[in-house]
């Protein structure tokens, strides 16, 4: 029995001729079809495109922040701009880039992986995207009109910035709810939870934790907003306290919550290219779930609980976080041993993402050890540098390095996802040579943007390091610039490929790589509206391998 019992058409054929419904309503085409679409692939593409564009900006801002460390801090940006650039850069990396990039991939791919015809609550998913985009614009606008968090002189602009942050958090919560509900409630017949593809599983774990983490973040922002707008002379509203109340979102362990889907992307990318079933499937699923459980960090808020990051439970949590990653790498190694791995760009990018994430989790462990004094920069560094002093008051340079590395790992994972699922997102594969070049660009950029800052974190213990501060900050800035270029190199071919497909260019076969195992490789490239016909129940986690083996899927 074939796994699909009705045929599907491609997006291109749908786009070529506007379809009329039985009621006579003509489906919009062109820009109207994009702006008004509730189709999960369209919404996912929009998330990915805009988040990567914001990623270019976020890494550029991070690079400019690193330049503050040079000299007296005011040479490049001027002292008034230094702190706003720092906070906007940190917030952008997480809220405008990393989470929406992964959420976009999930919105587009998860329904295909679980055999659903749509994402759950498609209009809510589209509404969440537009709310996110408008809120992102509002945040950037607020910063542009002197409303920076912690340093803005214009109170109304600053309130706009807080409202924008609440809008971003709520939009990402709603988007996450749509994805996790799809995994829980819209799986096709026969797909028990332990048969869900790895990326969908990782999104189930991540989405559940994101809604809780971002809910807490929204509450924090609301408190500051009320204090600023209505309060009088209280510590929540004080300019120098605003950023410290919110900074926990971009520091360990919370920042690793946003990395959970990277595990799923890497697992799917590697397994797909081995051609064999994952022999340690249970271990891989457990590793992803364990990483999620150990990364929850919304309770570690040093502003309200001084020294929270040094408590034994937090240090232990950081240390244990390494183990699921090692378990996952072991599982992927077993898959490679069982099959014949191909050296294509998606699995290489996936593995590099995991290794970078492993390094980030390892580097997060020493931060909790108080005697290492990593939570404050060396006195000699901040004595004459006001910009660095302000920026480091809540987020020390050591943590800039850890965040930079985690964000870089997510960029690499995002690139792996985009290259792996390009046939579903774009309609055809992207150049594998460019993908392999991305490994070099992103790998080098990730290390360059993070390692110098991590090294600088040890300056209080090794006085000689402070003498090299200018060079180390300069190297980190160069690394951030390389990452910005890398983000552009991910999005540019994707947009170009999509435009070519819309213009009638070639499209790939459903199983574009010829080694697909999961249901997304059964849908067209790109998938038609509605994704599949009626699916027969699946009988294993790898229904396409079942079909190839001649059995019922």
């Amino acid at each position: 029995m074939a796994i699909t019992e009705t045929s599907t058409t491609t997006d291109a054929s749908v786009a070529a001729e506007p379809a009329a419904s039985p009621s006579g309503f003509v489906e919009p085409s062109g820009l109207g079809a994009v702006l008004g679409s509730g189709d999960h692939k369209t919404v996912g593409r929009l998330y990915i495109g805009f988040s990567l564009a914001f990623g270019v900006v976020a890494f550029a801002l991070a690079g400019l922040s690193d330049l503050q460390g040079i000299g007296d801090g005011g040479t490049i940006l001027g002292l008034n701009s230094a702190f706003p650039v720092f906070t906007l850069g940190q917030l952008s990396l997480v809220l405008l880039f990393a989470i929406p990039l992964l959420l976009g991939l999930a919105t587009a791919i998860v329904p295909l992986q679980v055999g659903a015809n749509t994402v759950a609550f498609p209009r809510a998913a589209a509404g969440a995207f537009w709310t996110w985009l408008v809120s992102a614009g509002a945040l950037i606008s607020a910063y542009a009109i002197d409303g920076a968090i912690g340093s803005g002189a214009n109170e109304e602009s600053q309130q706009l910035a807080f409202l924008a942050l609440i809008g971003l958090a709520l939009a990402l919560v709603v988007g996450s709810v749509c994805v996790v509900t799809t995994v829980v409630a819209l799986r096709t017949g026969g797909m028990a939870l332990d048969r869900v593809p790895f990326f969908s599983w990782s999104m189930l774990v991540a989405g559940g934790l994101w809604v809780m983490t971002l809910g807490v973040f929204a509450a924090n922002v609301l408190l500051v907003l009320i204090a600023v707008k209505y309060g009088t002379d209280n510590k929540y509203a004080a300019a120098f306290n605003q950023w410290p109340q919110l900074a926990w979102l971009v520091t360990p362990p919370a920042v690793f919550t946003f990395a959970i889907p990277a595990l799923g992307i890497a697992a799917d990318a590697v397994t797909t290219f081995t051609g064999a079933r994952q022999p340690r499937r249970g271990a891989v699923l457990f590793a992803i779930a364990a990483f999620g459980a150990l990364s929850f960090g919304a309770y570690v808020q040093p502003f309200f609980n001084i020294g929270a990051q040094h408590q034994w439970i937090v240090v232990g949590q950081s240390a244990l976080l390494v183990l699921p990653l090692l378990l996952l790498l072991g599982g992927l190694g077993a898959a490679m041993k069982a099959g014949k791995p191909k050296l294509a760009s998606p699995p290489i990018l996936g593995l590099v993402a995991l290794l970078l994430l492993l390094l980030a989790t390892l580097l997060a462990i020493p931060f909790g050890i108080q005697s290492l004094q990593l939570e404050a920069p060396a006195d000699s560094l901040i004595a004459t540098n006001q910009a660095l002093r302000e920026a480091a008051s809540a987020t020390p340079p050591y943590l800039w390095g850890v965040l930079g590395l985690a964000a870089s790992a997510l960029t690499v994972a995002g690139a792996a996802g985009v290259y792996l699922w390009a046939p579903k997102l774009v309609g055809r594969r992207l150049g594998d040579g460019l993908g392999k070049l991305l490994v070099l660009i992103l790998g080098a950029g990730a290390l360059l943007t993070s390692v110098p800052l991590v090294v600088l974190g040890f300056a209080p213990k090794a006085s000689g390091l402070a003498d090299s501060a200018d060079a180390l900050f300069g190297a980190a800035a160069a690394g951030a610039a390389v990452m910005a270029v890398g983000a552009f190199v991910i999005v540019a071919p994707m947009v170009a490929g999509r435009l070519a497909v819309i213009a009638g260019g070639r499209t790939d076969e459903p199983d574009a790589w010829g080694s697909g195992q999961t249901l997304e490789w059964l849908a067209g490239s790109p998938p038609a509206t509605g994704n599949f016909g009626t699916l027969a129940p699946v009988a294993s986690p790898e229904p396409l391998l079942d079909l190839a083996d001649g059995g019922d899927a």
Partner: protein
Amino acid sequence: MTATHVPPTEVAINDAPEAPVARPRVLMVGTAFAVAAMLMSFAALIGIYLTERSAAIYSGTAWIPDGVVIPLNQPNVMLFALLSSSVTIQWAVDAARRDDRQQAYLALGLTVVFGLGVINMGAYLYTVMGLDMAVASLTPVLIYTITGAHLFALAGAVVFTGLMAFRALGGQYTSRQYDGLSAAALFWHAQVIVFVTIWYAIYITK
């Protein structure tokens, strides 16, 4: 070879398509995750409130500013109204499950009235307790943020329940499908749980 007799009804049963897979209901699952986000938001705010209050008391500072009296009458009435509304919304779900539409309408109407009453009482409480935001203290900021956010969420629950009530009036919910009412009830119960916590943490312990 002998032919076996198969009754026509059995043939029909054997040829019938497979029953659809029993999955959790979409709206219930989505609402459950949204409720998780909301509960975490209030857990964060109330956690901060208790931390600050504890620190103030430990340092010998008065937590409630001088001259401010937070009465118990209104919070108690709000509590009992919300507890009652939990009963009425569950009554609505049960009535829909029994296809008793009249009772479902009555129960949903009562729930919305209880909700609006609590919002009204909350607004009135603000006017009588005299807690001024212009005081240089964390107390008013925290109390107004927490209770205000709860009233806002409760207003959302009233709208959600009202929407489901209109759908019920349109005949969408029957004993075979009452997902929307169950989801609205879940969201409503979460509001009640949050208020019970606020009632104890803020109004009782002060």
